[in-house]
């Protein structure tokens, strides 16, 4: 296949796609489960503010937790029913730690709250962004950053290009692929809306050449529009936003800058489809397409309500024939093992893979690093993974930072090619979270220092003020009779004793 105007980035790998496993069947619909568990934190930013209490009746699409501030997203009831409880439940997070969730018991009537489509063509940009801040839409590619924040633009740098990310480069994941095949119109309409809001001159869809049907569907839907569908070669990690920008435009987003600073904004296909559904149909973000694949009997994509227990999804996919019961969320390159099969479907959950010894054999024993630098050849960010490995392994965090550890996108290419089977990315994740924790505690220490200094200054000031008051009192007393003078000396002595006592307590 010929690629026109494509700029190949450095590195990358070609893992076995395994995508056909889950593309033979259309997107299925799950029955409404017996309960829905909705975490309050499903997005990047501040946790949503609770709007319901146990026992409340809610309608489908009703806001049950509201966005708190700008960088936050609302959460809507995925179906009608009763709020059962608000409690800490285990989340689909590598930590396996619980966090606050709203549990809804559906009434199986699925009654919608009054849908309010927004005539977006009549509203101006700020009004639209304001409206979208209630939509609960976050980046559905996995980054879960509130979408309305990405539509804000600063005056100094207008957006020229809107990139729609349809690459879906991770093996096994097909949720975007299926969405494009079945709902290409929604995606194109959503892209046009996003383009209008951003005021972008052009809109490019970047799609990998392994998704032929999806590409055809998109091309058909985009026939009468100015949207360009650009096919990019299948190389992991082409779906990383900055890699995709390079592939499509040959522009490298510099370190510590966002693509927005260069006039480029990137949205995932599912995100723009959600924008379309919210504005045109009045449907907030209450469900998403999830791929359930791997060792399950019938791998397929499902439109699942947020909060659906993963166990229901597994049952729908024919159950798991093997006994390992290990499930990976995300792809095999960047995903993580789920702590339990009872975790809910969240906005970030694009794919669940049942692991089995045949698909993912146990990792081979780790051998020492021989500095072959294959990882450096594979790194799409042009880092020196072998150096980062040494510094992370020996906890030389400052050094690791100097070698641009924080530019690492944790794509796993280095781990994939390492002939010594070293879990390199795990070391980088460890080093990154250690550095972040240290910075946080440094910040806390600075606050404590400030507060302590303020307190000492305040005590000093109070002491001075008291001394002044006494001096003034003493002056007034002098003019009076000797009796009063005696009294004041006693009072002053008492005050001194008190002060001494207080000082004794303090020291």
């Amino acid at each position, binding site marked *: 296949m010929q690629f026109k105007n494509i700029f190949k980035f450095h590195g990358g790998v070609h893992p076995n796609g395994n995508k056909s496993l889950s593309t033979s069947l259309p997107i299925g619909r799950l029955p409404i489960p017996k309960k829905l568990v909705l975490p309050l*934190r499903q997005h990047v930013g501040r946790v949503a503010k609770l709007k319901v209490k146990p026992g409340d009746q809610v309608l489908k699409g009703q806001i049950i937790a509201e966005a708190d501030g700008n960088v936050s997203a609302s959460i809507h009831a995925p179906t009608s029913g009763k709020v059962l409880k608000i409690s800490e439940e285990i*989340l689909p*997070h*590598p*930590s396996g*730690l*619980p*966090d606050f969730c709203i549990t809804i018991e559906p009434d199986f009537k699925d009654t919608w709250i009054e849908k309010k489509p927004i005539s977006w063509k009549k509203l101006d940009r700020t009004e639209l962004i304001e409206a979208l801040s209630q939509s609960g839409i976050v980046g559905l590619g996995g980054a879960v950053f509130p979408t309305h924040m990405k539509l804000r633009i600063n005056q100094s740098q207008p957006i020229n290009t809107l990139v729609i990310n349809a690459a879906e480069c991770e093996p096994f994941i097909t949720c975007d692929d299926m969405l494009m095949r079945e709902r290409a119109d929604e995606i194109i309409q959503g892209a046009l809306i996003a383009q209008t809001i951003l005021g972008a001159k052009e809109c490019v869809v970047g799609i990998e050449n392994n998704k032929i049907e999806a590409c055809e569907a998109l091309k058909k839907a985009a026939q009468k529009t100015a949207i360009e569908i650009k096919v990019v070669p299948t190389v992991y990690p082409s779906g990383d936003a900055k890699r995709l920008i390079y592939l499509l435009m040959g522009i490298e987003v510099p370190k510590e800058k966002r693509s927005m600073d260069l006039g480029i904004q990137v949205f995932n296909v599912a995100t723009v489809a959600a924008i379309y559904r919210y504005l045109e149909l009045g449907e907030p973000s209450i469900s998403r397409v999830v791929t359930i694949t791997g060792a399950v009997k019938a791998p397929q994509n499902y439109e699942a309500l947020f909060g659906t227990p993963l166990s229901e999804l597994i049952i729908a996919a024919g159950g798991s024939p093997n006994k390992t019961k290990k499930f990976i969320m995300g792809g095999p390159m960047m995903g993580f093992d789920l702590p339990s099969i009872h975790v809910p479907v969240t906005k970030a959950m694009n794919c669940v893979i049942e692991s089995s010894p045949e698909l993912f054999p146990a*990792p081979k*024993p*780790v*051998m020492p690093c021989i500095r072959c630098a294959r990882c450096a050849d594979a790194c799409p960010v042009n880092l020196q993974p072998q150096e980062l490995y040494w510094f992370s392994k020996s906890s030389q965090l400052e050094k690791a930072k100097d070698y641009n550890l924080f530019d690492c996108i944790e794509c796993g290419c280095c781990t994939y090619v390492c002939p010594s089977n070293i*879990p390199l990315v*795990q*070391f980088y*994740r*460890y080093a*990154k*979270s*250690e550095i*972040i*924790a240290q910075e946080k*505690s440094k910040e*806390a*220490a*600075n*606050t*404590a*220092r400030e*507060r*302590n*200094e*303020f*307190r000492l200054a305040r005590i000093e000031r109070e002491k001075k003020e008291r001394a002044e008051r006494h001096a003034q009192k003493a002056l007034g007393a002098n003019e009076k009779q000797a009796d009063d003078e005696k009294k004041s000396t006693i009072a002053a002595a008492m005050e001194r004793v008190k002060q001494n006592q*207080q000082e004794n*307590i*303090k*020291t």
Partner: protein
Amino acid sequence: MITALLVMIFLAVLLGLILGYSAIKFKVDGDPMVARIDAILPQTQCGQCGYPGCKPYATAIAKGEADINQCPPGGDTGAKALAELMGVEFKPLNQEHGLQKPKSVALIDESTCIGCTLCIQACPVDAILGAAKQMHTIIASECTGCELCLPPCPVDCITMEPVLENSQSWKWKYPVYNIQNTTGA
């Protein structure tokens, strides 16, 4: 001979003037060493080192009066950082000053609190909220876990609660894996 002498004298005077001027112009207020040591200390303000706070301890270290291993909240890592900064040999934490404990915050049992304000006066970072004969409470986000509020409390209603890991403060752990046995044994 005379010319050489004159040149040397002229140079000496000129350099002296420059040095004298820069000594006044670029004078550094305070001891920068104290600030650098203070930046390493954890700012718990607990006084376990024997000084009434982190800054006094930093001053004492800078003067050479105190050792670098007297800070239990800083632990061995803190002592290491201080040793590196001061250019001295690392010493493990002197356990006479206390053991390094996991980070905790104070918690007031509000039903027992009598509102005596003694803990408020003891808190080095103003992290306790309350007034006379009113219930007190700890502002957990500001509490450094120094335990200074424990001894003054007449009803022993303050306990230290270790800060547990939650999904926000969770960290990726150091990777642990099997290595290949190459000896054949």
